[in-house]
């Protein structure tokens, strides 16, 4: 870490400042309570910590299941070099989501209650279980990286043996809770503004999570390439961008169908605060990157690819913030803007994520890929196969 940070003292200073502010905010949050540290109120019970740290955070970590599915289930082995960073991002992401939850929950010491006190009718209950299980799956998916470091070959062999079931379970769990984060808002048809409330919310959340998962893989590859003077897998990343564009296309067409079905097209042109933020989200997160990344000359160009992917990420963040905050302001009859302490905690969590990612890349075999034939059967099985075949001949 020393080496990374001492290179850029500006970033070091910024990080230090954010952590100091975050530490103070943490003190106020846990000693004086949510009222003293946040701008939350009875009219606005969910703010930045739910909207960004949890709802957005889980989405940004969707690259883990997307890439795992592409490589291990669809057998697109070309993408193998970026699986590990994607799994790492996901694992860190989910850990940070849980950390963020500890700030937001009013009674964090009772968080474990969801394990024994069941309410299967609650979307939140389902999300809680999926997040718990999927974080475990991610830990297992990521474990070979750590085990490799310590040369625990036997354990690695066992994990590799269960990789496929593990990945499939991970994809299913992700499908469930990524969409369920949208289902959370299905309960509020009268509160959430018409541009965001839709019976298709679970579907929108799922598709956009896949798109942003692809974009995040590209963005983090770029950032770590810059930080560690590493080469870039441009051809792979450009193809991942194409998957992202397709997802955005599916998303856009369903969004349009939804607005037509609900006869809500008029909302697009009302001179209202919500309208502007909706267009911002669509232009930055959907139209812009689709136009940019659909063209080969931009997609296969360093800056073009990075800009397009970054736009998807930013647009996604605006979408989740709109759904969780902007969309409720009209109903609540008042605005919400996070307090500086809410911002300090959120920024600290983000910076913590960056530092943890950098440390992991530095000390663990994340980008330097050891074995390519991870999943092919062991050599002796091949020999047996060959024997049978040659005997048959």
């Amino acid at each position, binding site marked *: 870490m020393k080496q990374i940070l001492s290179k850029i003292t500006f970033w070091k200073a910024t990080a230090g400042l954010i952590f100091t502010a975050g530490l103070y905010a943490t003190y106020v949050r*846990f*000693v*004086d*309570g*949510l*009222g*003293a540290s946040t701008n939350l*109120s*009875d*009219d606005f*019970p*969910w703010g930045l910590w739910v909207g960004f740290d949890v709802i957005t955070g889980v989405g940004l970590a969707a690259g883990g299941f997307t890439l795992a*599915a592409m490589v*291990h*289930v*669809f*057998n697109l*082995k070309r993408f193998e070099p970026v699986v590990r960073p994607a799994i790492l991002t996901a694992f860190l992401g989910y850990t940070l989501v849980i950390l963020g939850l500890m700030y937001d*929950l*009013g*009674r964090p010491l*009772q*968080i474990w*209650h*969801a394990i024994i*006190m069941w*309410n*299967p*009718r*609650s*979307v*939140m*209950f*389902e*999300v*809680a279980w999926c997040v718990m299980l999927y974080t475990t799956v991610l830990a297992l998916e990521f474990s070979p990286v750590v085990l490799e470091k310590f040369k625990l070959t036997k354990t690695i062999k066992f994990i590799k043996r269960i990789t*496929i079931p593990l990945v*499939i379970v991970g*994809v*299913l769990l992700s*499908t*469930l809770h990524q*969409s*369920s984060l949208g*289902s*959370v808002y*299905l*309960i*509020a*048809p*009268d*509160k959430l503004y018409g541009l965001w409330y839709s*019976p298709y919310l679970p579907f929108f959340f799922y598709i956009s999570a896949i798109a942003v998962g692809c974009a995040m893989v590209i963005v983090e590859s770029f950032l770590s390439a810059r930080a560690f003077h590493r080469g870039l897998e441009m051809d792979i990343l450009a193809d991942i961008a194409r998957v992202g564009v397709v997802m955005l296309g599916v998303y856009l067409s369903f969004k349009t169908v939804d607005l037509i079905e609900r006869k809500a097209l008029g909302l697009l042109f009302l001179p209202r605060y919500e309208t502007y933020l909706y267009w911002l989200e669509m232009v930055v997160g959907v139209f812009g990157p689709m136009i940019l990344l659909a063209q080969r000359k931009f997609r296969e160009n360093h800056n073009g690819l990075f800009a397009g992917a970054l736009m998807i990420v930013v647009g996604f963040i605006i979408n989740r913030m709109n759904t969780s905050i902007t969309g409720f302001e009209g109903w609540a009859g008042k605005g919400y803007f996070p307090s500086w302490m809410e911002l300090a905690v959120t920024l600290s969590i983000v910076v913590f994520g960056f530092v943890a990612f950098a440390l992991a890349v530095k000390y663990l075999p994340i980008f330097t890929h050891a074995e390519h034939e991870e*999943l*092919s*059967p062991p050599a002796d099985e*091949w020999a047996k196969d*060959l024997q049978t*075949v*040659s005997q048959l001949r």
Partner: protein
Amino acid sequence: MIAKKAMLIDITLCVGCNACQVACKEENGLSDKEEQILSPTAYTVLHEFNGTYVRRMCQHCVDPTCVSVCPVGAFTKTAAGPVLYDENKCIGCRYCMQACPFQVPRYEWDNNYPRVQKCKFCASRLEKGLQPACAEACPTGATKFGDRDDLIREAHERIKAEPEKYVNKVYGLEEVGGTSILYISSVPFEELGFKTNLSKIPLPALTWNALSKIPTVVAVGGVFLYGVWWITNRRTEVQQLEAKLREMDDRSNGHETSNS
């Protein structure tokens, strides 16, 4: 079976004396200062609209949204009607507050281990066969306690008896599937701060619609993913095997290449 209890609030009879809040605060041991907005220390309040007073409180829905959304089941709907909250289960996610269509649950924002607070429908008094403290305290009969079915009948009778006085609507009869607090009024409800466009179906149906698809997603998704893997993996295996065979053939034909 226990008859579902309810309260009928006849807005035309309310004189705004606030006796309901005073009695409520005494019953629940809350600070006795007068409050106009629902808070952790005011489970019921009077809202004034041009001389007309409207009691605001938990509506004790027939199929309560809070009960359905709570991940740990901290809310329960009792057989008699009250919707109750258990702070020992609550994890503090505040989904109940986000979801409640009447915006009733209040939070102890100043407490560093906060609870959700709201009207308890005097559940412990009901068990003893008593009526809620507010209904008992009401001097004009604006708040009347009874069985829900009886009160619905009475509400309709009152409207029928004086159709020129009342608006022809019993609020709470079918809002979000029905509530235990029913209102009749001489002023249109939308002018009194009531949400009159709430859906007729209980809100939990909306999320259940998504949740009930989980088994299908898991079953179909699981089979689909395994199937895809089975096909794509087999293809790779065959390709690799064929490559090996070609190599073997090459060798036996004497065309040995350099990378042996």
